[in-house]
């Protein structure tokens, strides 16, 4: 699946998107798996309350299932308008 990062999440992880192979069944599990990879992921995902997640371009929660998802995106709270 494609994992996308925006704003300071992108900056901390150091790339805008990557392919991830995972057995995680929820967003939270995917995050736990990413945090174990490298310190930059650990730093980026340290505070989930400061993050938002979208599955296939729709906002959702961290306990949402990701089976079948093509694209999971992580980003800070939005500041449009």
């Amino acid at each position, binding site marked *: 699946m494609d994992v996308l990062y925006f*704003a300071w999440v992108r900056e901390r992880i150091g790339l805008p998107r990557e392919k991830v192979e995972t057995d995680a069944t929820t967003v939270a599990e995917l995050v736990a798996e990413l945090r174990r990879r490298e310190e930059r992921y650990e730093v980026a995902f340290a505070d989930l309350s400061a993050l938002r997640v*979208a599955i296939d*371009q729709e*906002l959702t929660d961290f306990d949402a299932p990701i089976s079948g998802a093509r694209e999971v995106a992580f980003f*800070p709270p*939005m500041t449009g*308008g």
Partner: protein
Amino acid sequence: MRVLVQDSPFDLAAEMTGFGGDGMGAIVTFTGVVRNNDRGDLVAMDIEHYPGMTQSALTRIATEASARWSLGDVLVIHRHGRLEPGEQIMMVATASRHRKDAFEAAEFLMDYLKSRAPFWKKEITRDSADWVAARDEDEAALGRW
């Protein structure tokens, strides 16, 4: 309904020509402009967005507004990229038979755009580049709808 996501400027006047159409007595517009920060040293606002999601998120918000209020027309334009102080960032426009619907729908659009459309602002000054933090009051504003 029109929803535009673009890096180029927009022209309020051109967008408003013919907007609303027959029978609409009330037209409300909101225009957001890059304003300088309190120190007066803003060089630019850099606006990142999530290309695949932006158009559909804005369309969903506009559709929701059309479902809740009696609207003859809705327009949403949001820019991304590097914008300097004084430049227009975005606009919404609503047309309705009565002013109450037009005002409420425009405020609803703005409240949702602020917190539910995938845009992130970075404030560039001569010495720094900081992501603008989401404001609790913007999230709280959603509670009234």
